[in-house]
């Protein structure tokens, strides 16, 4: 079976520091893959290489068999790959609803129809669905910048699904989110995966969150994969314990 995402021998250095060294893995349709590792293990660099934000020194990235290495993020997004960022990335001056519509509008019609057509680019009902699904309905008219951190995280995640992407990469979705909101977020992500079959790759430090959410984990340390498998197995792996706890 062809993997939805194929990452092969990715390498990336910054000066003399090798951030990612020959990382390869596949992600299959409908999977929720977690990428974990201590600080500085190369997770975010790997993410940025996959998503075209950084050009890898070596290696290839394929989506549905198509080589997308170093493809611009906007073009990658139009091929059905979305992402969220480690630090919050909503548009504070736009309302919650406008943030959602913006997240999907470039996938609707042509540039000219976006100029002369409906203001919501025909995404009104899709935005409604997301507002309800992520329980943001009562905030739809609020400026995104006025939302709490947890609410902005929910909005950030909701935006990743507005374009109908089949593969979503989440960079520390649980970071800074309170426990109640965290359970909410995890439950929403699981529901989307279950109901629509969207595939996730998740970078996360919160072990409880990632162990509960992901179906498979890969563990990075010093830019290399040191373990891979089901969450329960990875948790017991001596190499992982050593990487996290040190000698």
């Amino acid at each position, binding site marked *: 079976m062809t993997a939805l995402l194929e990452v092969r021998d990715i390498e990336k250095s910054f000066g003399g520091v090798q951030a990612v060294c020959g990382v390869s893995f596949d992600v299959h349709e409908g999977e929720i893959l977690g990428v974990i590792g201590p600080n500085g293990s190369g997770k975010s660099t790997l993410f940025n290489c996959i998503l075209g934000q950084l050009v890898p020194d070596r290696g290839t990235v394929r989506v549905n068999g198509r080589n997308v290495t170093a493809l611009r993020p906007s073009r990658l997004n139009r091929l059905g790959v979305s992402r969220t960022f480690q630090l919050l990335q909503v548009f504070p001056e736009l309302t919650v609803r406008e943030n959602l519509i913006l997240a999907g509008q470039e996938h609707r019609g042509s540039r000219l129809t*976006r100029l002369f057509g409906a*203001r919501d680019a025909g995404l009104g009902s899709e935005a409604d669905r997301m507002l309800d699904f992520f329980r943001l309905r009562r905030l739809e008219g609020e400026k995104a910048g006025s939302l709490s951190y947890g609410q902005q995280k929910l909005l950030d995640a909701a935006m990743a699904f507005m374009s109908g992407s089949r593969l979503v990469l989440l960079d520390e979705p649980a970071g800074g989110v309170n426990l109640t909101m965290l359970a909410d977020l995890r439950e929403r992500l699981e529901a989307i995966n279950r109901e629509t079959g969207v595939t996730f790759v998740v970078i996360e430090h919160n072990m409880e969150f990632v162990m509960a959410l992901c179906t498979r984990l890969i563990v990075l340390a010093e830019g290399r994969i040191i373990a891979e498998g089901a969450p329960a197995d990875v948790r017991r792996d001596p190499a992982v314990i050593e990487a996290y706890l040190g000698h």
Partner: protein
Amino acid sequence: MSARNSLLIGLALLVLLALAPVDLNDIGVPYPGLRRYGTYILTLWLVTAIAAMGVNLIVGYAGQETLAQAAFVGIGAYLTAIVTKAGVPFGVAFAASGLLTFVIGIALGFPALRVQKHYLAFVTLAFSVLCWLVFRNEQWITGGVMGIRDIERPSFLGWPLRNHIRFYWFVLGITSIMTFVLWWIVRSPWGRAFTALRENPLRAESLGVDVRLYTLLAFALGSAYGGMAGSLYAPLVEFIDPSPFALGPSLLFMLMVVIGGSGTFLGPFVGAGIAVLLPEWLRAWETWYLLIYAVLVMVMMAFFPSGIVGLATRLLARKARS
């Protein structure tokens, strides 16, 4: 504000502005209408507002920098003056001014794909100086410091616009159309993409927004507004020389947008109003006028960085809440 209300308010303002130079005493309203100079100042305000709308699109909505708007106004003004004197109809000159500045705007937008903020401002500043040098030194085509005189006002559908009130109405009509076009753009998904560009280009790109294309579009459209304003400026003043297209006026355009309210739709009109009308009101203070103007700008920047429209919006929102 809903689209319908915005349009209704716009239409009401349009009617009031259209009546500004008309003597209404004949129909029983005790209003003598603006005199020739007042009508000229109002026309200049409209032309300035068109160019400021372009700066607002580039700076206020798309978050880029430009110190070259006066240069684009100059390109439009010189092109119109030169070709209309050669017998080309004004309509063609107006369209050509818009098209040429649109294309040059795209070229000027390319540096914005590589550099940002003050570095980008310096690039546009260099372009502004380059244009001014061409206007001043290429005497064979621009007339150099002696400029181009006797630029005729056009006719519109066989209706001569020599009369100052007729020309004012003509400029008001074009300003209304250009205001509507910009209003449509900023309310469309394009406007949302421009805002995304200003607020977070990295995130916008990851959502499929072609940041390069929208950056170039913002520069091209904003510059074209400058070029078309210049095309109206030449027949308004009937004589052009390089001085109104130097770096100083470009800074003034930026200032108008900031004072009026960067990224607000009415900001350029308010800013242009202050830049064009305030010197007239403060004329009585003679040399003190520049000092008063400078202090006003500093107070605005220090206490109301969102500009006059931003301040008014805040006050109205507070009043609505209480």
